[in-house]
Structures are given as structure tokens and as C-alpha cells.
């Protein structure tokens, strides 16, 4: 079985975020890391490989992004993925979801041309853009069924069954491989890279693709081809001191409720 996990390199949420002059996120000047939500995807792919240890299962970590994005692939390899693919091309900068999903789909097709891809795993969203639509778009482009937002994943043979927790109901969904799967942050804590894993990752193969390797024209991606553009980006205003409700005579609860009501929280 051949599994591809798509991983995104995102700016560290605890660091200062910066924007480029075109209002897109500055991805080079900020410390970055593997999106935490994608760690869950890597974890589920690795668990699948461990649970089905009688089969030959290969897990490939795939990322699209600038040079630094290779760190996301490396982290996935340190956690235990077998190989990595990094798609990088200056023309990709500024791509929207459609552009990104096109590059991902083409890369998955290229990986699949060597060995058929049975399962593509995504996190539920990226921690920077938080769109959550790329898995669906990639599924559409690949012509594969999409099984999204799984909190529990079971598989046997070519059958996959997942649990998806909604606000009002929990769905159990069955599907036949090949599929595109996305997993939530409820699917199980991701493992830490171990010392052995870190050392082993040094020797794992990482392939680099450019757009021409994938047969994608520069005009199909990037800011020019994007259907959406960031018109304005404003830094979050500094946190204000807040309002303190004092309770000296027992009226505190009422005052608190009035405050919350005035802000339309209740």
C-alpha cells in the first residue's frame, strides 16, 4: 500500500507574524514548522502502517512550499515516514487553494506513476490559513472519493471506515480505497520524533520537483492565477487591559452577566 501524507510548513504561531508587501504571509522571514494539524495526519498514516504490519506499506510526506518547507517533510520523516517529496518553484508563491490543490494533485499523480497511491491523508486544515478545503479540491482533481474530518480510522483490506463527529450527530462512513482522507485533532496525539527516528531521517530519500517536472504551467498557479487575493492585512491590535468586575456586595454575578450580554456573548 502506498500512502501519501500532505504536510504544510506554516509560520510558528507563537512567533511574530509578518506579511509581504502583497499582503501574503511572509514565509521566509518567520520561523516555521510542520503544521500541528498535519502532525495528526502523519500519525494516522504511521499507525496504519504499524497496524497492518503484515503488508508492505510506504508512507510518503509531500509538501509544496519554499526552500524552508523542507523542514516539514523532515519532521514527518523523523516521526517515521519513509520518504519525502518537496515541490518548490518561485512561480507557486501566492497561490490560492485552487493553485495549491493543483500542484498537490499533480505531485500525487507523479508519485502514483511509480507506484499506485492508495490513500492520501491530510490534516483537517492548516494552522495558518485554516481553509480546510484543500483535501476536497485534491480529491476532486484526482477523481477520488473524499472522506473528511475523521476522528477514528479503521481499515481492512481495501475497506476504510471512519468516524466523523458532527455537532448534532456522529457519522460512520465507509469507503473503498483509493480515497482522500482528512483527519481531525481528535484522532490521537501525534508521536514525538525519537532520537532514533531523527538519525534515521538523515538517510531517507527526499525528491524535489519543480512545476515543469509536474507538467504544470507557471501561469496556472501563483498570485496571478489566484481567484482570490488578500486586499488588506492588519496586525491584531495589542491586547487591552480588559474589564474587571468587582464583587463586594454580591452584585458581581449580575454585573458579569450584563457585561457578557452587552457584548452579545449571552
Amino acid at each position, binding site marked *: 500500500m502506498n500512502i501519501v501524507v500532505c504536510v504544510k510548513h506554516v509560520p510558528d504561531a*507563537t*512567533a511574530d507574524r509578518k506579511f509581504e508587501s502583497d499582503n501574503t504571509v511572509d514565509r521566509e522571514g518567520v*520561523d516555521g514548522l510542520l503544521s500541528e494539524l498535519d502532525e495528526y495526519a502523519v500519525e494516522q498514516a504511521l499507525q496504519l502502517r504499524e497496524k497492518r504490519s503484515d503488508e508492505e506499506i510506504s508512507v510518503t510526506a509531500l509538501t509544496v512550499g519554499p526552500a524552508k518547507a523542507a523542514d516539514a517533510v*523532515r*519532521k514527518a520523516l*523523523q516521526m517515521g515516514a519513509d520518504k519525502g517529496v518537496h515541490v518548490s518553484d518561485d512561480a507557486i508563491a501566492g497561490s490560492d487553494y485552487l493553485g495549491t490543490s493543483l500542484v498537490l494533485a499533480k505531485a500525487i499523480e507523479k508519485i502514483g506513476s511509480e507506484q499506485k497511491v492508495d490513500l492520501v491523508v491530510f490534516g483537517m486544515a492548516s494552522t495558518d490559513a485554516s481553509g480546510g478545503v484543500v483535501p476536497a479540491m485534491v480529491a476532486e482533481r484526482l477523481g477520488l472519493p473524499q472522506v473528511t474530518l475523521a476522528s477514528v480510522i479503521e481499515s481492512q483490506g481495501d475497506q476504510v471506515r471512519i468516524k466523523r463527529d458532527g455537532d448534532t450527530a456522529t457519522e460512520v462512513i465507509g469507503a473503498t480505497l483509493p480515497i482522500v482522507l482528512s483527519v481531525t485533532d481528535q484522532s490521537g*496525539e501525534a*508521536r*514525538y*520524533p*525519537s*532520537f*532514533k*527516528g*531523527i*538519525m534515521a531521517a*538523515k538517510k531517507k530519500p527526499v525528491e524535489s520537483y519543480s512545476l515543469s517536472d509536474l507538467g504544470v504551467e507557471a501561469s496556472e498557479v501563483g498570485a496571478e492565477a489566484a481567484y482570490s487575493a488578500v486586499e488588506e492585512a492588519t496586525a491584531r491590535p495589542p491586547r487591552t487591559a480588559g474589564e474587571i468586575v468587582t464583587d463586594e456586595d454580591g452584585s458581581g454575578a449580575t454585573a458579569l452577566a450584563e457585561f457578557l450580554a452587552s457584548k452579545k456573548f449571552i
Partner: protein
Amino acid sequence: MSASSTAALPSALSSGVVFTGTPERDALREAAAAFTRREVAPHLDAWEDAGALPRELHRAAAKAGLIGVGFAEEVGGDGGTLVDSLTVTEGIFDGGGSGGLIASLFTHGIALPHIAAAGHTPAGADLVDRFVRPTLAGELIGSLAITEPDGGSDVASIRTTAVRDGDHYVVNGAKTFITSGTRADFVTTAVRTGGSFEPGKGHGGVSLLVVEAGTPGFTVDRKLEKLGWHCSDTAQLSYVDVRVPVANLVGEEGSGFVQIAQQFVVERLGLAVQGYAAAARALALAATYASERQTFGKPLATRQVIRHKLVEMRRQVEVARTYTHAVAARHDAGEQVIAEACLAKETAVKTAEHVCHEAVQIFGGAGYMRGSEVERHYRDVRLLGIGGGANEVLADLSARLLGYAG
């Protein structure tokens, strides 16, 4: 400011000392820090109050691949050098860990090396299977017992005796200040199988014997209360006619002193890392606080007297770290660095004491309060100049090794 809120502050990595190494070591440090942020920091206050770590934490740390770093794969470890295991310690402090946590979660770092090193004989391999592998898997907890009520610095003068009786040794004596001793499943115990405790007659008569919890006559006398290292349990142990199989002897009879001495470099450099890593963390916390805390209408960090303090703290941490790493790398390369390890420890101890003192000062009253992380580091680092060779003893050893002893 509570410890749980400080755990979320920028790490030493991002706001101060940059612990860069190879990309692999950076990844290892980050993995250790991530483990600590998630599995340790939220509970550390409770473990400090409880006076001990839960066993479950040892299993979790083993599963995360942190326990076995620095131990060879042949004995169940994950491989790696001394610098690699020091990197784990840095990461743990960076993630909000503490000296007590390291002492207790990594007691195997002092309890196992002798057993692992003696594993090349069939009897030694058996001890490796019984004690080293399960401990590195997080299933067992081990302690090292050398210090006695009558003395710790003078290892050759121990009084606990082991007298051969058929296939057993009969052990009598007492050990004190033993880290993880109340929870230990086994205790690597220094015993006297020959010679005498009188000055100059002791070295050749010391042996190492693994004593298992539950062996009749072997008991925890007392759990000791301490100034710091609260989450690390410390025990006084009693041995009364304890029959220990001869198979539990580590290495040759009478080779205990040499075995212990061989591990000193590693232990001392480990304590040096604790010193500068605690200092780096305290500096990061203090620097953040100084930029946020306003007095007389301005942040503390705008005052020259405060920011110069921060620079001096930073200077000491950088020097202690750089020197300790250099000595550890020389040890990894096979060099004899006994004196240098003493100098590194002394440098880091002084750094830790100065930096944690100043960090508490910058925090003001909040720094004196229980639950503030700098308060814990301030108490915890006091041990570093006492354990693993006290300052005075190491200075004197260095004087002899460096040719300054007249």
C-alpha cells in the same frame, strides 16, 4: 505568575540563548521540549507537591524515545553520544522542566551505566537483561546508592559491608540522600567487600551490587524533605542482613571504586548542563518579564541597571554552555577530560546560582512566591554545587590533576 502560565512563555530558544547544534540535535532538543510542554509542564506543580513523579511518566518518556538516548542499542538504548543526551536535558528545561524532574526521571543515568558497561560477560549480560533493558523501556526505576550518613565526598570510605556467604552476599549498612530511592525497583549499591574505611585503605575493597526492592532486610527508612528538587523523591535506605545473589555483582569484585570514578565525567557534565540550562530558562523568563512589567511608567527592561543584569546573565550562560559542550565533545572523542569536567561543572554552578538569583530579583516579590518558575529554579540549582562532587572536592581534585597541588 503561576508555573502553568510561564510554561507557555517563549522558550529559552526563542527569547535568549540559542542552543543551536546540528539539525539533528536541534530536532532532538525540540522533541524533548515538546514532550515537556505537553506531558510535564502542566503537572509539574502537582508533582512537586506530591514529592515524587508518577511511574507513568517514565513509560511516556521511554515511548517518546528520551530515556534511552546515550545508551547503546545493544543494551536497549537508542544510541547517541554524551552531547546527544545533554541536548535532551537542554530541551527539557526549554520546555519548562526542572532540575528535580531531570534528577528523578533520569536517575537511570547514574544507576545504569556501570551495569551497561559490564554487560560483555554472560553474567553481565544477564544483569543488562534484568535491569538495563526494562529501565530504558520505562518499566523499572533504578537508583544509585553510594552516599552514607557518615559521608559522601569520600567514596572510598564507605562502611556498608557485603560479606560472601555461599551464592550470596550478606549486606549491612545504610545509604542516604538517594535519588528516586523511595520508588526504586532496584538500587545499584556501593558496598565494601574488602579493605577498610580508614583513609588510604578503602579503594580496592569497594564493589557494586544490585539490590532489588522487596529483598528481606532492605527497606526505605525515610523519605527526606529537601530545599529543592521537590518532585524528586530522596530516600534513606537501610540494609539489615540483606541476602543478595552473587549474580547481582556488577563487574569484578573490588572494582567498584574504579567503575564509579569512570562515570564521574558523565555525571558532572550532566550536572553542568542542568546548571546552564536552568539558567537559560530563568534568563528567558526574566527577560520576558522585564519587557512586560512596568514600574514608574516604563517597562523594567528600559532601565539600564536591569538590562545590564540581563546581558551579564546571558554572558554567563553562553560561556558555561559553550565550554560544557566543548568538554563533552572531547569526552565523546575519547579524550580524558576529568579536570575539564570539574571546571565545566564549577562554571555552570556559578552561572546557575548567579542567574537564578538575578532572575528572582527581576521578578521582585513574584519571584519569591511559590509557583513562580524562577523561584523553583532558584531552589533547585542550590544542589548542583553539592551533588556529583561538591565544589571544594572538585576544586581540590582539579588542583592535583592540573599540577597546582604543590
